[in-house]
């Protein structure tokens, strides 16, 4: 049962923005824009969003690992301006010290707080028992499986009895079965009401995981990261993955997340006639694979069902869907995927024909692909340095995202036979026998 939030908030995020300066152009890049969020004691809140929605940044702001550019994070009554003493954190990569034994890894937070050694040992062993690692105290992390290593990560976070426990995609480095098992145990612990923290904030891109664990879902949007909306999970615990309520909520979340976002942040500005509207990071092979699958099922297919069937998490599935929609191969309405005629043609096509179709659609529907192609055609040598494109992309994207956009453009361009990239010289050039555009 979700505990009713009757007390004063345990954490308040007040109009927080985070921007990073871009030293080259003198501008700045916004990761989070005007985020408001309140967390109450006794609840588990999940931050859901695609990559680039700034959910990890938000978690690090709460932890006090980074400071907001604008706005304030209040932990209780206190403004967080240094590492937040009220929290502890479980990391995606476990972040264990391989040279310490299991119990030493757990103890270390207490030692740093100058707790009496005997007491520290006692509490650490208790925490280890809680996560089912009794008897493993003297093992080294490398001797344990991934799931057990993450249990150590949980014990280390539990032992300092934080007010808020921050979980940064704690199950995503584990295989499906191990993740499911550990997730279930954490849920059980929470239901038993002797959970070693008052509240939990969970960052995830796995929609079902969020519904399984959380009382509230916060949906974050991308470019820049911001709160798009929130949903309450009213279901009683323990939750049944196959129950009707669960499925319909999962459906709903998928629908929200696949809906085109209305851009609230600063619009993408074309630089010198160069349109940098983002490309979804999906490989052509994956797009055609997805379309073939939908084709196989005949009618419209539910996004949540596809995710379940393919065992792909939303974070990986959504860009593929986005790409299919962008290229006009498919439509998504109310969480259902339908193929367009040209999408059907693409799914049926032979290798060479498919590439021709892809080329035509990319040039017509993906502005960045067209911009790159035009730029190359108008250059004398038919080739342009990568640096030029990165500079242009940097105006609207973070460094990493600019690189990622470029990589995706290259992948698409190679498949479409539009242009090729020489990674030795870092030069983009027109494909050897580049065709005239279809239109």
């Amino acid at each position, binding site marked *: 049962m979700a505990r009713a939030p009757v007390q004063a908030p345990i954490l308040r995020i007040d109009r927080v923005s985070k921007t*990073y*300066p871009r*030293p080259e152009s003198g501008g700045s890049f916004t990761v989070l824009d005007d985020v408001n969020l309140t967390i109450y004691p006794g609840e588990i809140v999940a931050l859901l969003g695609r990559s680039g929605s700034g959910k990890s940044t938000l978690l*690090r702001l709460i*932890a006090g*690992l*980074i*400071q907001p550019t604008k706005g304030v994070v209040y932990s209780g009554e206190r403004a967080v301006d*240094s*590492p937040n*003493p009220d*929290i*502890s*954190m479980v*990391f*995606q*990569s476990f*972040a264990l*010290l*391989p*040279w*310490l034994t299991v119990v030493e890894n757990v103890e*270390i*937070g207490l*030692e*740093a*707080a*100058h707790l009496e*050694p005997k007491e520290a040992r006692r509490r650490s062993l208790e925490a280890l028992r809680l996560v089912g690692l009794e008897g493993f105290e003297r*093992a*080294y*992390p*490398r*001797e344990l*499986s991934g799931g*057990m290593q993450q249990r150590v990560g949980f014990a*280390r976070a539990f032992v*300092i009895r934080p007010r808020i426990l921050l979980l940064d995609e704690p199950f995503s480095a584990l295989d499906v079965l191990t993740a499911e098992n550990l997730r279930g145990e954490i849920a059980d612990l929470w239901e038993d009401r002797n959970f070693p923290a008052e509240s939990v904030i969970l960052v995830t891109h796995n929609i079902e995981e969020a519904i399984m664990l959380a009382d509230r879902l916060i949906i974050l949007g991308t470019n820049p990261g911001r709160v798009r909306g929130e949903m309450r999970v009213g279901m009683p615990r323990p939750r049944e993955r196959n129950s009707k309520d669960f499925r319909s909520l999962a459906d709903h979340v998928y629908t929200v997340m696949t809906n085109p976002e209305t851009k609230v942040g600063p619009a993408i500005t074309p630089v010198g006639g160069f349109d940098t509207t983002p490309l979804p990071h999906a490989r052509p092979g994956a797009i055609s694979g997805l379309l073939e699958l939908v084709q196989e099922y005949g009618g419209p297919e539910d996004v949540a069902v596809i995710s379940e069937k393919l065992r792909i998490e939303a974070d990986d599935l959504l860009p593929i869907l986005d790409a299919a929609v962008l290229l006009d191969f498919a439509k998504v309405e109310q969480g259902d995927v339908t193929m367009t005629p040209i999408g059907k043609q693409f799914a049926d096509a032979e290798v060479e024909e498919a590439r021709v179709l892809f080329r035509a659609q990319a040039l017509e529907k993906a502005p960045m692909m067209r911009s790159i192609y035009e730029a190359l055609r108008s250059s004398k040598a038919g080739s342009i340095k990568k640096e030029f494109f990165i500079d242009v992309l940097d105006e609207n994207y973070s460094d990493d995202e600019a690189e990622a956009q470029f990589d995706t453009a290259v992948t698409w361009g190679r498949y479409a036979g539009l242009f090729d990239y020489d990674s*030795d010289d870092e030069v983009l050039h027109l494909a050897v026998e580049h065709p005239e555009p279809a239109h």
Partner: protein
Amino acid sequence: MIRLPFLQRYTFKRPPAFADVALLLGTFALLYVVAKVGAGFFVSFRPPGTTPNVDLDPSNLPYYAIRSSLRMFIGLFASVIFSLGYGYLAAKNALAERILVPLLDILQSIPVLGFLSITVTFFISLFPGNLFGLEMASIFAIFTGQAWNMTFSFYNSLITMPKELEEAATVFRFSKWRRFVSVELPASMIGLVWNGMMSFGGGWFFLAVSEAISVLNKSYTLPGVGSYVARAVNERNMPALFWAVVAMVVIIVIIDQLFWRPVVAWAEKFRMDRSASGVKATSWAYDLMRAAKLPALASRFWRRLRRRLPRFPGLPAIPWKIRRRHRLKINADLLAAFFLGGITVVGLYYGYGFVTKEVRLQEIAEAFGLGFLTLLRVLLLIALACVVWVPVGVFIGFNPRFARIAQPIVQICASFPANFLFPAATVVFLRLGLSIDIGSIALMALGAQWYILFNTIAGAMAVPNDLREMAASLRLSGMLMWKRVTLPAIFPFLVTGAITASGGAWNASIVSEIVTWGHKTLRAHGLGAYIADATAKGDWPRIVLGVGVMCVFVVTFNRFGWRKLYAAAETRYRLG
């Protein structure tokens, strides 16, 4: 369900009592030797002129060998302290980073031996009237041969620390000290240990040179294996030389078995990657220490004692300041450029003024010409060493059973100070009438070639089996196999080996372009001989000129040659 590999851990088969006795005896023996030899260290304070005599009786060799080793270990200790301090500062402070890292880059590419005259003079003036200064100068030479590598390794480990590990340390409120001891130092340990071991091996060369050196028309001698060899050369005493070589091999093997192997085996526990890759380093001495019960007893006793003692009040947990690189960036860049630029300009101005007072411009040009001759030698040597050792190394590396035996042997060869063999080679040159202009290439190769062989073996061992099976199934062989598979696969290792070999060769040029046997001296045309000549005569302007020109050569070549190759190796030819 759950496999517990730690239950199958290797257990020492002999009864633990044996281990304890062996450990106790070993510890007492070590203490005794250090106390005995260390005393000699301090007794040798004597006014200059009465330099300690080196006795060529082979029975004295153990004593000399131990004195030399002691110097090596003090040098190593100093290097460790320096690496930790310098590396930490460079990694943690944006301004310091911008000054210290380029500085270190230059420091590690300049030929240490060229500066021997400067450092010897400096340390002697620090301790006038006794030989302690000379002792320091020798240790300093060893230090300069070890410290830069280790510092780079530590700095690199610090800046490539996994981000989540750092965040965990912050979230769990580690103090700076705890962060250093529990996270940063352990994470850097493997790199430090391996670099320390390799540099230690290289250090013997500097030791041998620095124990017996004539600077500014005076010859200085410190009791040790290096000076023993120098004396033997003076007296043309072949048997004594032979015994010195034997003693050197013995001491290298002993230190390897009793010190480095255990340390490397111990450092295994600091490995970051989860899967234990490749063959794990093992050491019988380390197993012995672990089997012994005494260390555990002692540490338990110490922990109990510490609990009784009043608690150290402990520093308050200082919240770790978040690093804001970008905020400082422009200022730090400017400041650093200003600082480094200033040093360079001032150095050039004074250096030029100092040199041109006595040296004509034409001679400067000549020095550059000599530099090209030495460069030619270095390049020839590397090319020849590659032609000879790459096939051998690949053969060894592709046969794991072979490699297990060969690798430690090659490592010992690399550690062996090649200058011990110079006299013997000189005799051969004299007999055959071979010009030292060519012979010096062979002398430089005596030390430098091993780095190429060593790295080739390591590279060949690292080639994934899949690749070799693919090549076999496609029936690739001969030139095609070499060109398409083998050479590209070992290329990054080969480049590393060549860079190390080139550094070693530049240093070696100073001692291998002039060699003596008794009263006969062979002198090659080259920058190394030029510097050695100037050093012996105490001709300061020419020392500065020679060393300066060599620095220019090495730094330029590193920047525009090796660095490019290395970048290519890292991006294109990296496996896995």
